[in-house]
């Protein structure tokens, strides 16, 4: 549904996007991740036809975004990063305007506006002036605007920026409901968001793809297998030496806390589950244990790792 071939963008002497290629099949939600300045917004702007690429091409639902611009744009619902809106317009007025620009007839427009205002939770503020709305509500208007023409492809640039936690989960819910009906490219740097709703993740840094795959697969490929965190009532050095001797332990970090407690983070060699041997080690030393938990590797660690490698490499 979204095909990107060898996309390159130079801003004067700066290379913003470096030979990017990817495919997104129909009905998938793909998370588009990367640190600030990685080229996410530039890539999105080329996909939506706002900026022409220096070379390479992008095809949306079979239409080249430059050569068949009007057809391609009809297929795309786009929520830009800062949600720019006409502040002097009323919500329903704005939605009518966007519908008209999409070439929708009046009856269809009315029906679609009913639908998107309900879906985006705008019924109560339909007749309010956009300039008087809160940031979260403006974001909903932006989302409603992107959905008005039932686009096959939805491109959302940081859709939850400026939301409070409840609203974030509402938007996540909404995106989840849209799944299947639309192919969604979701740019964000909020990782939990992607871990929960995306089928697939593309991570870019320095204008290149550095990783692609399902969130779970990417998490698995993180070198560290997670860690075990323990809190033991004993001297820090004693804990460090004792735990280091356990089979399969790669690294032990200790930290002295008040009232004689020691906080230890134990990382394992790949594939080892250390909870049982660590428990035995604590028991054999007859230490008091107040906490032991297993910390799974997160996409966040992967993200930091991969983007750090990238910056070091360049």
């Amino acid at each position: 549904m979204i095909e990107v071939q060898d996309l390159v963008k130079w801003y004067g002497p700066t290379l913003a996007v470096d030979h990017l290629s990817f495919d997104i099949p129909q009905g998938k939600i793909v998370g588009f991740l990367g640190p600030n300045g990685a080229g996410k917004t530039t890539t999105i702007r080329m996909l939506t036809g706002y900026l022409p690429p220096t070379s390479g091409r992008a095809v949306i639902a079979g239409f080249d975004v430059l050569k068949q611009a009007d057809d391609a744009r009809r297929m795309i619902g786009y929520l830009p990063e800062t949600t720019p809106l006409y502040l002097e317009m009323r919500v329903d007025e704005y939605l009518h305007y966007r519908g008209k620009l999409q070439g929708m007839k009046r009856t269809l427009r009315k029906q679609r506006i009913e639908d998107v205002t309900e879906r985006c939770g705008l019924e109560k503020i339909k007749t309010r002036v956009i300039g008087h709305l809160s940031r979260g509500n403006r974001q909903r208007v932006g989302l409603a605007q992107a959905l008005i023409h039932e686009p096959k492809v939805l491109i959302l640039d940081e859709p939850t920026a400026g939301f409070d936690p409840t609203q974030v989960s509402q938007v996540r819910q909404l995106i989840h409901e849209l799944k299947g009906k639309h192919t969604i490219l979701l740019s964000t740097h909020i990782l939990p968001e992607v871990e929960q709703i995306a089928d697939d993740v593309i991570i870019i840094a320095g204008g290149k793809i550095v990783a692609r795959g399902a969130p779970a697969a990417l998490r698995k490929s993180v070198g560290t297998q997670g860690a075990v965190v323990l809190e033991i009532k004993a001297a820090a050095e004693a804990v460090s030496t004792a735990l280091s001797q356990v089979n399969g332990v790669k690294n032990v970090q200790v930290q002295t806390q008040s009232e004689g407690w020691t906080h230890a983070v134990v990382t394992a060699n790949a594939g080892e589950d250390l909870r049982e041997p660590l428990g035995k080690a604590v028991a054999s030393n007859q230490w008091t244990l107040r906490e032991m938990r297993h910390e799974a590797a997160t996409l966040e660690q992967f993200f930091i790792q991969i983007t750090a490698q990238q910056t070091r490499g360049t």
Partner: protein
Amino acid sequence: MNRTLTIAQRELTSLFFSPIAYVTLGLFALGTTSIFFIYFAPGEQATLRPTFQWVVWLLIFLAPAISMRLVSEEFRSGTIEPLMTAPVNETQVILGKWIGAFVYFCIILLAPMLILIGLLEFTSDPDYGPIFTGLLGLILVGGLYLAIGIFASAATKDQIISFLFTVFIISIFTIALHFIAQASFVSNDMARALYFVNIFGQYEDFAKGVLTLSNFVFFFSGIALFLFMAVKVLESRRWR
């Protein structure tokens, strides 16, 4: 065409929603009426010609005040991005915005004028020929100024710069040409040629009520030229 009109309609509504609109309308109505009453006395001719002569000057500031935000504001607020990613092209955007501003300008111009014409009709027996051509001339001058204004507006995201740039270009085609034509080094033929590209010179014919095709050609081609340049400037955004 539909999309052009959609953009024009939005532009017109948003002009009426901005406070600047009412300030310009108020100032313009005050200006024209004051000028009118200077010449409105017993024994004077029942004509709007002297009023129109002054209004042409007022338009140098009125038109840029209307046009300055047309495109600049889209750039400043970022709304250019959703606009240019909708299925519309640069020509539709520029043309739509110009039409919206032009309709608004006609309303602002005609509102006080119709009242003044009514006043003349009520107190005397005016000659409607020159009044009609004079108004038509003002409308064309305004249309040209707005085209210059939208060109300047597409070139910058700062409304003030857009305003000043417009006034500057208009001044070249009015005041500057007028003085150059009077300079000693300019030959007679040259002076006549300069008179033809001078907006005030062209307006003169409308005020007198003597119209030829060339007057219309001048204004229509001027409007088309600046609208075309505005489209090109807006397109250039993509290649910068």
